[in-house]
């Protein structure tokens, strides 16, 4: 199916990196999206903009400052290195890069989902004796589902495609930090067009499939 002897390690690494970064985006982003979608508070606009910043800044700029923070000589990296944990130039750094690049997309979409939830339905649940926590799980979250599902798919696809931040933070080391986009970049530069084409097609197929699944999933009532 693919070019003879195509190295699938970048694809497996990409699946792991994008999977973990999406998991982080969903778990951290859902409460944040709920907060931003349902409440007005001081600093809300600032928080919203900070979340969106990595989407609008050039990835190399974001990547450079993340690297400055997490490299062994950076303030965060120094503490982590003392604990025996390296982020820069490791696959974990690639997860961090993918998460930073895709978090805003998830929050944006999930926030829109929460904004569309009709508060009277939540009030109805409250009058029926549900606790605040019960209202959130049985009413708010199911109604915001479409936004969350769409955000998850978008974040995953963005994470698969993340290039600029990853190159800066994780480098381009085959078998360790070389995800699909970096492997394609390397193949093109090395004039290995068959590899570049095969990896591009593989990515296209996976991403299109996921977007289709997400659209279908979002239409299903839970």
């Amino acid at each position, binding site marked *: 199916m693919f070019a003879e002897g195509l190295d*699938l390690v970048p694809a497996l690494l990409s*699946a792991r990196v994008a999977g973990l970064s999406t998991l982080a985006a969903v778990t951290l982003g859902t409460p944040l999206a709920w907060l931003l979608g349902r409440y007005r508070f001081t600093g809300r606009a600032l928080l919203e903009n900070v979340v969106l910043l990595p989407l609008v800044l050039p990835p190399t700029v974001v990547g450079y400052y993340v690297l400055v923070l997490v490299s062994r000589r950076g303030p965060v990296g120094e503490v982590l290195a003392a604990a025996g944990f390296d982020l820069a130039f490791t696959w974990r750094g690639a997860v961090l890069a993918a998460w930073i690049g895709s978090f805003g997309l998830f929050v944006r979409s999930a926030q829109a989902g929460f904004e569309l939830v009709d508060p009277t339905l939540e009030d109805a649940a409250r009058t029926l004796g549900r606790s605040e926590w019960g209202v959130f799980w049985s009413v708010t979250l199911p109604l915001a*589902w479409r936004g*969350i599902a769409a955000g998850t798919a978008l974040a995953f696809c963005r994470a698969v495609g993340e290039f600029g931040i990853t190159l800066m933070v994780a*480098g*381009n080391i085959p*078998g360790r930090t070389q995800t699909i986009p970096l492997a394609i970049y390397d193949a*093109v*530069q090395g004039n290995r067009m068959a590899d570049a084409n095969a990896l591009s097609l593989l990515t296209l197929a996976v991403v299109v499939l996921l977007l289709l699944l997400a659209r279908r999933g979002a239409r299903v009532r839970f």
Partner: protein
Amino acid sequence: MLGRVVAACGLLVLSGSVPHESTSGRRDGLVVFAASDLQPAFTELGPAFEQLTGQPVVFSYGSSGSLAAQIELGAPADLFFSADESYVRSLAQRGILDRASTRVYAEGRLVLATLRSSGITVASLDQLLRPEVTRVAMANPEHAPYGRAARQALVSSGVWETMAPRVVMGENVRQAAQYLLTGAVEAALVSSSLALDTALVSAPLDPALHQPILQAAGIVRSSSRPSDAQRFLDFVTSDVGWPVMERFGFVRPHVR
């Protein structure tokens, strides 16, 4: 419902991580950061070294300047092959490379290349001023040694001023060659190692037009396997490795 999303992500993570660990996670190749002009030669030398020693090598290619910056910031390289001496010397001075291990392993040659299919041939730098050559690619002189040599050659031939607006800079010399191979430019100043592609025609440049491209290498001090790194470093200039380097246009250095 949210549980399903999490479960789906979890599955993806597992499906991604399990085969990854078994295929490459424990492969533990020697990590060599190499200037991009070395790619064609090292693509042959890597497997040859593995066959000889059983030790796999993985290469991360880039411009010497950006690779040096990554190593300085703690990138997990075992060995650094730069396209020039200055980055190696400066890393060794700061204790990042093992000073005793550093050596000039080759001298690189700059050539003027054109695309065979374009029918354009350029024999010397002043011929770059001909109207059919609208764009010329070279590596960025700020952090790529071949870019620096290319600029020096253009300056000493007295054509830099006129050429500058038509120059397209690649992040590294490999990208400059790629611009030519894709037909984005009509000519490129690249290393002889990258001009061997059958799609290209190249003319050698007088090495006296620029400072010699003395390519140096050194072992990273934080490497956990300095003896493996030393073996690969020796292998490149050995009787087995050197003929490959020579075939890709590298010359034995005439210093020290």
